[in-house]
């Protein structure tokens, strides 16, 4: 209720004094935190004011006619219906304005396209419906998934501050360095956008697009996928943390160590219970978007795994589907996306959850061997 009262107040205020209104009623683009985003903001404001000026003249004359040349006021129609001079002028003047506008736009565009001499390269891959960030010079990478709980989306819980704009693993970049993004996609076209950077580029399967940024202010910056990519297109945010360089270096070292640990996990001996526990969690992040937490899927697009022929059949076929995917469908090859421990845990979980009672399990080592045989 309180929020609504605020809204009504803000509505009247916002309409009368847009500049004074609260954050919720922002009416304009923000300048952002990079050189590019500031250049874009300037272009945006310039062209906006040009439009306002042209509009003021054209609508001014029009309203004057509406006001002064009414029949009810006794206006008699004039007889003119062409004037070469005027017509040439109002063709040429807009042309000149546009040429003037095109010059700074061209300069900014050239700058945006200059992806050379980067300090750090990050490969960004779009998946239905998450992002993968691979630090190609550092040899590690990870997935970034939405963390907003489904209960908030379904209105069973109050929505958090960063509703729909929060992820488990944000991209981390150092401030002051030129970061180059290499964008591609695994299934359909996605588009990676961080408004504060002025970076938006499509991630297209079979193509590698390039974009770059240099962020000067540390902070957490949020954006979203902007190319319709299926059911959960609205639920694959982009979060980037820009941190000071030392912090970035420690973070990279941690990531590398963690990657090493994961490799060790594969060698460890696992019990059924451990696998089931890990599997439930990993399933929820990697598979539930399509097959649903309860294993019922969303037929016919996404089949149920509860009682499915594969999840309750030959284990080799099950491993094959999960590791290699089913080409030409939304079922991706998870072999390259998840580590062996997660793959083993998920498969074991699927065979023994929701009333699937196969009683068998597969270990990370077996998955490792399976992958290496291929």
């Amino acid at each position, binding site marked *: 209720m309180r929020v609504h009262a605020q*809204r009504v107040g803000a*509505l009247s205020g916002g309409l009368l004094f847009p500049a004074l209104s609260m954050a*919720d009623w922002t*009416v*304009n*683009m923000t300048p952002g935190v990079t050189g*590019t*985003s500031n250049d*874009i903001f300037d*272009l*945006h404001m310039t062209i906006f004011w*040009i*439009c306002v000026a*042209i509009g003021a003249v*054209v*609508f001014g*004359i*029009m309203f004057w*006619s509406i006001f002064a*040349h009414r*029949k*009810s006021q006794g*206006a008699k*129609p*004039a007889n*003119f*219906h*062409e*004037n070469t001079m005027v017509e040439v002028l*109002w*063709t040429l003047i807009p042309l000149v304005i*546009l040429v003037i506008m*095109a010059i700074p*736009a*061209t300069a*900014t565009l050239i700058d945006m*396209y200059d992806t050379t001499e980067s300090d750090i390269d990050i490969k960004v891959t779009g998946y239905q419906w998450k992002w993968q960030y691979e630090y190609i010079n550092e040899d590690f990478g990870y997935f970034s998934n939405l963390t907003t709980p489904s209960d908030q*989306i379904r209105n069973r819980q109050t*929505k958090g*501050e960063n509703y*729909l*704009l929060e992820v488990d693993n944000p991209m981390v970049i150092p401030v002051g360095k030129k970061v180059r993004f290499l964008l591609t996609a695994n299934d*359909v*076209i996605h588009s990676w*956008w961080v408004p504060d950077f*002025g970076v938006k580029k499509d991630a*297209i*399967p079979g193509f590698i*697009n390039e974009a770059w940024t240099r962020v000067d202010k540390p902070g957490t910056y949020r954006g*979203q996928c902007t*190319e319709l990519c*299926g*059911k959960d297109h*609205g*639920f694959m945010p982009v979060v980037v943390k820009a941190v000071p360089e030392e912090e970035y270096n420690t973070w990279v070292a941690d990531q590398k160590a963690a990657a090493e640990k994961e490799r060790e996990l594969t060698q460890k001996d696992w019990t059924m219970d451990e696998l089931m526990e890990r599997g439930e969690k990993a399933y929820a992040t990697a598979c539930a978007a399509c097959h649903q937490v309860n294993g019922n899927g*969303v037929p*016919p*697009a996404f089949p149920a795994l509860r009682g499915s022929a594969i999840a309750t059949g030959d284990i080799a076929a099950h491993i094959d589907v999960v590791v290699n995917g089913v*080409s030409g469908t*939304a079922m991706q090859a998870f072999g390259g996306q998840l580590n062996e421990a997660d793959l083993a845990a998920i498969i074991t979980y699927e065979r023994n959850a929701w009333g699937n009672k196969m009683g068998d399990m597969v270990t990370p080592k077996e998955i490792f061997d399976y992958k290496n045989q291929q």
Partner: protein
Amino acid sequence: MSAVAGTHAQDHHHGPARGISRWLLTTNHKDIGSMYLIFSFTMFLLGGTMAMVIRAELFQPGLQIVQPEFFNQMTTMHGLIMVFGAVMPAFVGLANWMIPLMIGAPDMALPRMNNWSFWLLPCAFLILVSTLFMEGGAPNFGWTFYAPLSTTYGPPSTTFFIFAIHIMGVSSIMGAINVIATVLNMRAPGMTLMKMPMFVWTWLITAFLLIAVMPVLAGVVTMMLMDINFGTSFFNAAGGGDPVLFQHVFWFFGHPEVYIMILPAFGAISQIIPAFSRKRLFGYASMVYATGAIALLSFLVWAHHMFTVGVPLAGQLFFMYATLLIAVPTGVKVFNWVATMFRGSLTFEAPMLFAIAFVILFSIGGFSGLMLAIAPADFQYHDTYFVVAHFHYVLVPGAIFGIFASAYFWLPKWTGYMYDETLAKTHFWLSFVGMNLAFFPMHFLGLAGMPRRIPDYALQFADFNMVSSIGAFMFGATQLLFLLIVVKCARGGVKAPAKPWEGAEGLEWTVPSPAPYHTFTTPPDVK
């Protein structure tokens, strides 16, 4: 006058057939025009209902009414139905009714094909709408149906969607051929090309655009059909294909398509503003040339829809410059309309109100178009609600208000009665306020960073979305009033004279109201 007398004698022998066969078998341009218009309004209400579903879901953050899968089907079907079902058929309906009357022809040049091109449309839309009830649901990949979302990842109903598009395309091409044949061959003696009413000019140019690009659309959906059903890989990267190729082909159709939806409205507005300003259209010749220039340039700007796709820098610059250039002839048109009003003798009946709103609001859509043309800025605007605001400002006050203005302008001619002016003005003001309330806040949402085609959004977008939904409901409900006004007008009222508008000019006003079933069986003489 001889035309009128001749018509009267013929009425006894060649009046309309009775019953359903009148409509099924008719080759009369007026009957077919009416059917197009009724069909278009039906589709407008259907597409509008889907827009209401979209706006209801977006009323508040969170998922309340529909699931994301269904939301995507709603946006896709809304876009497709509005573009191909509401706007395009409405203009073909107006062309059918008015072009023969305006050029003094007895009918369209190819009347049987005319019947066929209309009746294809209900078939196409029956197929399209039936996909909603198919397993896997209706198309859910946006009205732009980008591959591979629409091919490899499309729902099973995609093949039906392709078939429906093919049928619509055939219908449009036949309609366009008919317009060209009629305008080029059947003008009354003395009506030279440069004496044609602007509506006829803009439709002639639109017809050429249609013939040029509908086959391209047919081509792109056929490639999809092959990819889906016959194992080709036009758009499948895994098979060596190219998803970006899809976008180039689609937008080579798609950009001229947006002019197909607006040029006939330009023409109608160029008839209406002089009529209610009681003054000749300013700069007739430059209007004709500007329309031609827009049509030609519209083939050179398609990649402005693809600035974020990764087009090379040189291409990016070319498409930015070409797009800025197209603003010049568009500006010329707006200036001409304003100059026509300047020092006229203005009255503000419903057609004029819609026409003035057209000029103002279409210009606002044009301004945001100019902003979108600045390629670096488009990186921020692209695929956000700013774009949704932009194209609704050109399509709703552009195409739809243009159609309403035309309908009120010519209703007396069609029905023989005057419509209820008070109700019509109410319709106008409610539409005007609702439309601005619905779409103006979308600019703010887009600039604040809200992507388009999402069923749920972050909390900072909540307030403007609520405003926008309220405006949308208002606009939507108001359209039922239009239905009421038209039905009321068709059933009776104040008798309309042959020329109900003091300042109107043209051959259509020389025949009685309602226009007899057959007109201009002997061509009139144009000085």
